[in-house]
């Protein structure tokens, strides 16, 4: 068991180093940051001085070694645009992204499971067909388009919800939350739907397929033969067995929800890490780009690692194969 965990951890570190190399190589190829820092009529001598002070004149291996040593200590340097440490900027933006990602995931889970169960049980009803159609839209329409459509309808035409931003936030230490104010909650609705729609339709289709599968199995027939209530069969037995793969997928998807919040955050001007990243790309603010890439891969690697380990905890059959080296 320990050997397995260690092996996985070493693999994870390998992935992080690979990502580190990629994110460092951005420093070389993403355009000249000096142009973004100064104005167009800044003299060449001034530009050279700035280049030197940023360490952009050093040989590549030296820059790489410096970059890696700092990144290992969570020192990502100072943002070229904001003149603030990148770690501080990420810390400040993190609550917004995590809150949005969590809300989107919960929304996707709850609504997705309900819709999935319903369309599996009442396959031929009109509502089930509508759900199917909606899920097709959710899977095929790009996020930014959904966001803009929602803004147009609910902010411009109806005027119910704010079109951008996070509303008023309450501060607890370094954490800020929009969950405790009316404007904050209102501001959360459209971005959560936009971000969660893809996951929601994915879960809905997954639940529907699994549920149909489970309903055909023998133990459900036995349960019916025993005379259990339909309710107990559907929710006590069928749904429970459906949820194992759903939770796995949802867990893994949480990482991509955080990573793909970039687009939603841009459309809604949500002050999270994704927006920070997009602004960084536009301004060739490489320290932020590199740090963001590293951080997202760290989230992915961690979730994967945890899921791998959890499997063995949840499923004893897996554990026995691991402990017996092949």
């Amino acid at each position: 068991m320990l050997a397995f965990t260690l092996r996985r951890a070493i693999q994870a570190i390998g992935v992080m180093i690979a990502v580190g190399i990629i994110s460092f190589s951005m420093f070389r190829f993403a355009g000249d940051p000096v142009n973004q820092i100064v104005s167009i009529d800044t003299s060449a001598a001034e530009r050279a001085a700035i280049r030197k002070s940023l360490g952009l004149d050093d040989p590549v291996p030296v820059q790489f070694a410096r970059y890696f040593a700092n990144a290992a200590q969570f020192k990502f340097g100072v943002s070229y645009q904001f003149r603030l440490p990148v770690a501080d900027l990420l810390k400040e933006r993190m609550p917004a992204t995590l809150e949005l990602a969590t809300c989107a995931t919960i929304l996707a889970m709850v609504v997705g499971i309900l819709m999935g169960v319903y369309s599996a049980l009442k396959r031929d009803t009109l509502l089930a067909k509508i759900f199917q159609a909606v899920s097709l839209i959710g899977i095929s329409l790009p996020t930014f388009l959904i966001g803009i459509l929602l803004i147009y309808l609910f902010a411009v035409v109806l005027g119910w919800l704010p079109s951008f931003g996070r509303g008023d936030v309450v501060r607890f230490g370094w954490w800020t939350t929009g969950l405790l104010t009316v404007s904050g909650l209102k501001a959360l609705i459209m971005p959560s739907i936009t971000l969660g729609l893809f996951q929601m339709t994915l879960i809905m289709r997954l639940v529907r397929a699994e549920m149909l599968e489970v309903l055909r199995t023998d133990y459900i027939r036995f349960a019916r033969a025993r005379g259990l209530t339909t309710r107990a069969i559907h929710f006590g037995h069928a749904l429970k067995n459906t949820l194992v793969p759903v939770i796995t997928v949802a867990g893994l998807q949480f990482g991509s929800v955080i990573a793909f919040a970039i687009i939603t955050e841009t459309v809604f001007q949500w002050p999270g890490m994704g927006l920070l990243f997009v602004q960084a790309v536009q301004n060739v603010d490489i320290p932020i780009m590199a740090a963001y890439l590293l951080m997202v891969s760290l989230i992915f690697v961690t979730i994967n690692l945890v899921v791998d380990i959890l499997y063995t905890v949840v499923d004893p059959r897996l554990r026995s194969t691991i402990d017996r080296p092949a």
Partner: protein
Amino acid sequence: MPLRQTLFAATAAFAVVFAMTPASSQTLRYANQGELKSLDPYTLKETTTIAHHAHVYEGLVTRDKDLKIIPALAESWETPEPTRWRFHLRQGVKFHNGDPFTADDVIFSADRVRAKGSNFLTNVPADAKFIKIDDYTVDVKLDSPNPILTSQWDGWFIMDKKWCEENNAVAPTPASATTPSYASLHENGTGPFTIESHQPGVKTVFKVNPNWWRKPEHNLKEIVFTSIGSAATRVAALLSGEVDVIEPVPTQDIQRVNASGTATVMSAPEIRTIFLGMDQVRDELLYSNIKGKNPFKDIRVREAFYKAIDVELIKNRVMRGLSTPSALMVAPQLYPLSKDFTRTKPDPDGAKKLMAEAGYPDGFEVTMDCPNDRYVNDADICQAVVGMLARIGVKVNLLAQPKAQYFGKVLKPGGFQTSFYLLGWTPSSMDSHNVLYDIMGCRDDPKNATRGEANLGGYCNKELDALADKILIEPDTAKRDQMIKQAFEIGIKDYGYIPLHQQALAWGVSKKVKLTQRADNEVLFYWATKQDE
């Protein structure tokens, strides 16, 4: 422009009415596509940033609604000798923290703005010596006369010496700072607003400064600034009434905003000139199928290019009417004799003939560098140019890139790597000399290393350079304007550049808000009034 004056008068009258009612009661919400990065006024010379800073900081001089230089922290000034200026400072002005404003602050700011790391080095001449005469009088001694000294000072804001010293912010926050400085996160100016909170890249809240020395023309109690990068969201926020002012409005949304009934687009020509340039220095173009020689060295080819381009068509088709075709490399607002120049009509047949004379009857191939996220419809303009040049047989391969890559390639640090390009320029001193020096001046001048710094094509005429040097020190305005005219005539005769147009400003403004639009695109709310909700 009587209409414009009437509007100003109306605005002023409106402001007076409001000044009598309990003033400063409104919250104005403003969204810009760019963000406010540093609060240190010497860090970044960029229009939007300077406009933000102008709400909290003030210079010795400022520009009025028509861009004329007027007194600000300096009450008046005179030039007893051509090389010595005397400034009388305004008395009784206080910084936001209560410190009094004195001559020491001016001398301190003059040192700080010229210190290493400042982005405003060109605003205050290096040879200017600031001498304190008494607490409210400062002399500026120059090595050579400089009639546009105060014009260059717009955008140079005065900081509090004591405050900077106490907070370890004596040195300007350089663009490459590795630790954040106090001055980049806090402000202490003398201006009409103070900053209550500043989250870089997210939100900045300005509060009115009740102790401002000037009588406010606005009726605001606070300004909430948010950056909204996505154009569609920015327009939606304006139409839904969540923000009162947005800048810019994308050209394709102007109709929609005007039709909304809740907001309108304020539009006027900007002073930025968009033009095309050609590499006239290299013996062989970097990106062309002509080997061994440079077709742009032949004036006939440059003239043919000039004649092939139809600026009216660009205005009507690409800019949707929102541009002012230009014969000069400087905007008419900045040069009174602009009306003496007219752009010759496009003449594709004449252009073809010239190409044949120059030895290119079948044209040639050349790559054009173009930004695609810097100026209004920049990539579309280039696309139109490609089509127009195709008519005279020139095959243009368009390389439209984001500004980060574009500037990295074509500017001086990138080695001027371009054969044919589109660029926009606003003279930072609001004066023609800046254009004649930075854009039209010869590169590699041994005496002036900065001459021709943005002359990407390397156009060069020594006669023009000599004139530019005289223009800098000529104190007589009428004579000076005539010399500028001569210089521009040389540039036109050489077909050194192909000026296209001045693009239009487009601000989206709620009908509740009255705003003054200045041609340098600085959105300034100390002239704004907002009706009760």
